[in-house]
């Protein structure tokens, strides 16, 4: 956890963002993080801390606006808060080259005696090749420690490359904040580990006038649990950031992240009247069945996993949009063996006469008729 902003909150997103030039566009996304940290700031006593953070972004064709906020309560009972608002715009590509302009502003405060604010603008020249790319960037702006504004200037160059399933990037940054100046050499590596992902970040403050020296590094392990829920464990040491007013420290944090992304189009229909479904647990939950397709002896068999279901029906372009009951198999499996033509198939499943749902294992989209449908790619 970095001062008021747990690294685990943004670890995955930050590494990926740095690792490849983006072409931000149309979507809305949001995330919520909750967790605990053990943090030791340089020259301070260790402390436990509970954190909560939320982020949201709204992205149009080439413009992205992101807001983030975080609150931390330390063992002492004191609180820290941080909020950031950033926007970026990508110019159309010219060959493999793009220009990105971005601006960010934010503030943080700790208890009632430390307040920071910053406003920065950045321009980057991005160039992407086959499996690799690089960028040059300049950042100008101001930062305030509560006693007036200081000019900020930052010059950076970086490169990224894909190494099999991993992505590696490295950058060199020279910064000046008022009379403080420093340079950093950093690298990040993202490693997929089965269903999990490990992000490693290492760096060195090579030269510094008033911002400390040393090497630092962090590791973040993200493990998906179910749907948009993931467990995240993160730890390491990070340097002082004179722009945002964070001081160097070590931390170990664990938390949960809930995230969601809206479908692109069309817009979801207005909610219809509630139609409760009584599942096997007797509750009001609407269990989403899962679907898988197996191929044996030239026949594709579609299996639906629906826990505790009494009946399972399927409707779609493989049934001429007539409800077709599936046959019960073993272990909450329901099966339907039928020819699945190659293409993008559209269908939905319902359990015990409940609502028609896009089953897990398909891409859920909202159709032109105001309901959801699952898309399945059949080779």
């Amino acid at each position: 956890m970095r001062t008021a902003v747990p690294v685990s909150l943004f670890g995955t997103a930050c590494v990926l963002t740095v690792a490849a030039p983006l072409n931000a566009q149309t979507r809305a996304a949001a995330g919520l993080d909750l967790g605990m940290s053990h943090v030791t700031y340089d020259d301070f006593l260790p402390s436990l801390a509970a954190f909560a953070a939320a982020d949201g972004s709204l992205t149009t064709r080439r413009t992205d606006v992101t807001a983030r906020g975080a609150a931390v309560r330390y063992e002492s009972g004191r609180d820290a808060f941080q909020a950031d608002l950033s926007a970026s715009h990508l110019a159309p590509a010219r060959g493999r080259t793009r220009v990105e302009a971005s601006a960010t502003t934010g503030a943080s405060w700790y208890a009632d005696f430390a307040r920071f604010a910053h406003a920065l603008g950045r321009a980057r020249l991005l160039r992407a090749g086959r499996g690799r790319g690089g960028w040059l960037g300049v950042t100008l702006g101001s930062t305030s420690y509560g006693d007036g504004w200081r000019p900020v200037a930052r010059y950076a160059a970086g490169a990224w490359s894909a190494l099999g399933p991993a992505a590696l990037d490295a950058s060199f940054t020279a910064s000046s904040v008022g009379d403080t100046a420093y340079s950093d050499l950093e690298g990040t590596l993202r490693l997929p580990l089965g269903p999990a992902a490990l992000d490693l970040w290492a760096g060195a403050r090579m030269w510094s006038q008033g911002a400390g020296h040393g090497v630092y590094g962090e590791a973040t392990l993200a493990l998906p649990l179910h749907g948009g829920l993931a467990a995240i464990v993160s730890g390491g040491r990070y340097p002082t950031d004179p722009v945002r007013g964070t001081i160097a420290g070590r931390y170990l944090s664990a938390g949960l992240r809930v995230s969601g992304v809206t479908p692109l189009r069309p817009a979801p229909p207005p909610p219809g009247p509630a139609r409760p479904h009584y599942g096997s647990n007797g509750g009001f939950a609407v269990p989403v069945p899962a679907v898988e397709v197996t191929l044996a002896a030239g026949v594709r068999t579609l299996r639906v996993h629906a826990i505790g279901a009494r009946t399972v029906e399927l409707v779609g372009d493989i049934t001429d949009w007539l409800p077709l009951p599936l046959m019960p198999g073993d272990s909450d499996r329901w099966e339907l063996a039928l020819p699945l033509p190659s293409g993008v198939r559209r269908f939905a499943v319902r359990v015990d006469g409940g609502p028609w749902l896009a089953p897990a294992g398909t891409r859920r989209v909202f159709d032109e008729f105001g309901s959801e449908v699952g898309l399945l790619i059949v080779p």
Partner: protein
Amino acid sequence: MTRVLLLALAVLAPCAAPLRAQAGDPRLARLDPAVRPVIVALVDSARAAGLPTEPLVQRALEGTSKRAAGDRVVAAVRRLARDLGTARSALGPAATGPEIDAGAAALYAGARSGDLTALRARRPRQSLVVPLGVLADLVATGVPADTAAAAVLALAATTADDDYLAFRRNVERDIALGAPPAAAAAVRSTAATADAIRKP
């Protein structure tokens, strides 16, 4: 002349009284009599133009099954017919029905016809069903259309269908972990491309 009459029927039928059910696909008998003539006309026009008609029939049946209003069913089928035509033009005369259908899905998701043409150019002898399906899928996931198209195109020359599906799963997982969709697609694309290049 026939095509002109069918086109006129497609335009005028919403205002006309229900017409006698057209001969042809018996499944269309399930449609609302008020919209059936228009759908039949659209299907016949598509057939005359050499486009696959099954997707149009299915879209009409889907709307009927969901009890959608007649004008919405007609609008959906009409748009699909237009997208099928655009996809066929973009993919070339040798495009198969499933490819045209998948291309229409990609266009509906936000891909440009130029993306389809570029994909065909990079993958001239292989089926485009899976790449186009993955393209539509990525955009539905939240990946910007031009980023999704760039990722799919980057993989086109060297990537097998199974690898495309693995790429899609990886992007989906990264997004579930909180990665921005555009970044997830870009990073996974470069990783998959590098992987494909190393393959003997």
